[in-house]
């Protein structure tokens, strides 16, 4: 619900900011720094061979074996509509636990490189400015300014919503 988020005023927005405060894992994607709530992160692993699953949207890279579990992997650049890039030795997979339709599921996201874990206070987090319709605003929790640099905080549950992916599936077919 991006519109409600953006239209929030005064005290409500402050309460929202409080809920957003906490530890974030930051990573790079193209020239930007992003952050996701550290509680969602299960582990970080180097890039490994991914088995492609046929006839799925292009941002779904396939599946990997995570200690006996088959875990889907998403290319976050493609998912967020950014230009694709060659994978480098810094490229890695962040395995997150997100809310699926029938309980929590593990999902991997490919990012350009992991930076650090930041402790963000409510004062450092601001609401996302209104970029207009075409920006994937519903994926954003807010913006954080740390040492003069802006980090974009992602709502990873929404980014990796399986429902969303199903809809895409339907469009692809």
């Amino acid at each position, binding site marked *: 619900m991006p519109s409600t988020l953006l239209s929030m005023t005064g005290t409500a927005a402050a309460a929202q900011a409080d809920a957003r405060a906490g530890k974030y894992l930051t990573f790079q994607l193209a020239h930007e720094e992003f952050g996701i709530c550290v509680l969602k992160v299960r582990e970080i692993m180097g890039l490994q061979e991914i*088995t492609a*699953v*046929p006839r799925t949207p292009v941002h779904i890279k396939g*599946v990997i*074996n995570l200690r006996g579990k*088959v875990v*889907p992997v998403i290319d976050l650049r493609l998912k967020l509509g950014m230009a694709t890039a060659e994978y480098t030795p810094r490229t890695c997979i962040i395995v997150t636990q997100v809310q699926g339709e029938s309980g929590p*599921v593990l999902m991997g996201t490919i990012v350009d490189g992991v930076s650090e874990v930041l402790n963000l206070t409510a004062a450092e987090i601001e609401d996302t400015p209104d970029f207009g319709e075409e920006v994937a605003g519903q994926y954003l929790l807010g913006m954080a300014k740390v040492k003069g640099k802006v980090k974009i905080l992602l709502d990873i549950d929404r980014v990796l919503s399986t429902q969303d992916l199903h809809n895409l599936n339907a469009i692809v077919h």
Partner: protein
Amino acid sequence: MSHSSELRWQIEELALRLVVGDSENGMSPGEWIPALQRIRDCALGEQSAQVAAAANAIVERLQAPGDPPADARGVSIALQEGITCLQQAVEFEKSPCGATDLLPAQDPELLSDFVLESREHLAAIEAQVLTIERDPRDAEALNSVFRGFHTIKGLAGFLEIWEVQKLSHEVETILDGARNSRLTITPRAIDVILQGADYLRRWLAHLESSLQKLPSEEPPRDESLLLRIRSLSSTPSDSAPASCELAGLAAAIETPAAPVTPARPATAAQANRRNEAMAVKVDTAKLDYLVDMAGEMVIAESLVRHDSELGALKSPKLQRKIAQLTRITAELQKTAMAMRLVPIGPLFRRMARLVRDLSRQFGKRVEMETQGDDIELDRTIVEELADPLMHMVRNSLDHGIEAPQERAARGKPPAARLLLKAQHQAGQVVIEIGDDGRGLDRDRIQSKAIESGMIASGEGLTDAEVHNLIFLPGFSTAGEVTNVSGRGVGMDVVRRHIEKLRGRIEIRSTPGHGSTFLLKLPLTLAIIDGLVVGVGQERYIVPLFAVREMFRPTRETIWTVQQRGEMALVRGGLLPVLRLYRRFCVAPRSEDPLQSVLVVVEVGGQRFCLLVDELIGKQEVVIKTLGELFQNVAGVAGGAILGDGRVGLILDVDRLYKEKTDDPAR
């Protein structure tokens, strides 16, 4: 706690007071009347007219001026009788209305445990009752049936399922009588006990659906059954001589058919009980995790074993240690897998009951034998197997086995033989359902198939091909439709069931000598044998049970048929070809079919060819779900971890074929 239990509790306390109470000073009527009046008022408040009346009767008796129970003994007797009346009344009244509000008040976990446990008891009861039928003097079997009903009664009482408790109690009374030699187990008693078990089963089904929040009707109380049970248990002195005669008569009929081996069942029963005591219930999620970890361990072990640096050491000592590790990991994986397996024996014993009922209904005499009861299969398979097995047993009794006169005319023993047998064969479990009846009638199947337009003529068809016609939908040769078979929804459903379990069904039949159905099933649904194939950079796993053969096509064997796409000539027939790289949008190593391999697969009786780049090998893989994200990906049934630790996709051959026929251009 409901009101009814409050009432019960008050009465119990009264009874307790009577037992414990000091007889000298506690027996003045005035001490008891207030408590009784409370019970009466409480009962009136709940519209339990009988309890209220009973309570009132005691009060009146205690207060009666003309008949003063002057001494303590008189009061005590009056109270004892009165309280017994009260207990009966509350038992009788509360059972129906106690049941209606039972579910919300109860702990669902306890209830589901009760359902599970009672099912096990009922299964054991049925098996043992059939043993008793053969030998009414089998004390061990009798005791075991008694114990079964007794346990159910106790649990039902604890969970306040009064109908179940009541019926178990009544049946238990018969069995107790039999244990004390007060009455004999007659065939009628056997019927009643089995019907009692059926009634309990209906209740369990009701409880189970209520637990799952499904709409379900509470089974109505079967008054006539209760009456029949009571008439058996209450008049042992009158009916004993008659039933003795009956039993003798029954024994005279049954004895030649049933060889009595009292020693073995007893030990088997003891062994069973020991097994039960040693079993632990484990959450399946934990088991799955264990299986995952064991699988990973095997892969990790294999990576270590094949590590080139370790190999360069050329140390025999190290080699021995690694070999030991290999053995242990393999054993660990096997054990983890075996934990999901259960013996097939209980399922066979359920069939014994069916055979008994049906043989009476059809007026046929059948002797059932089971072999390989201890063969183990995946729990899911055993559960899913119940329906098809039941169907085949019915078919066998209805169509296969002849009536006694007909058998006599053919020089066969009057009692037919039905064999249920399980055995291991080449990593699979083979279940045989065999009878010595009339066998499949080739001519009748053929004419029926021609009549319903399934085939043009039977010429050139082998016996096996004709037999397989019975698996086509809508096929039935039964002259008339009975309530057990002959509706034409039979064998095709059976085959679909078996194929869903990744099994195969085969028929062996000799006219006049009987027929045998062979079910070839995997040990477990968690593992499949897969053929690993390569397409471009990708590897896929074709389930081996679907693979018939594979070959490299030549220019003569591959055709493009107008409007029907590509076909391959296989053993004189044309089969459609599906190029896997096209379907999956993968870049192949070569688009030339002559450089590729054709894998002939069969599903639902339909064959087609998969075109792949190369065959990599055969591997046993643990099936893993791809999760909700990929649940709609057509043609992929799941994933599996391959030997190098990567994920391979398991093909859904059925879906591939269906899409192929939807879209011949692909």
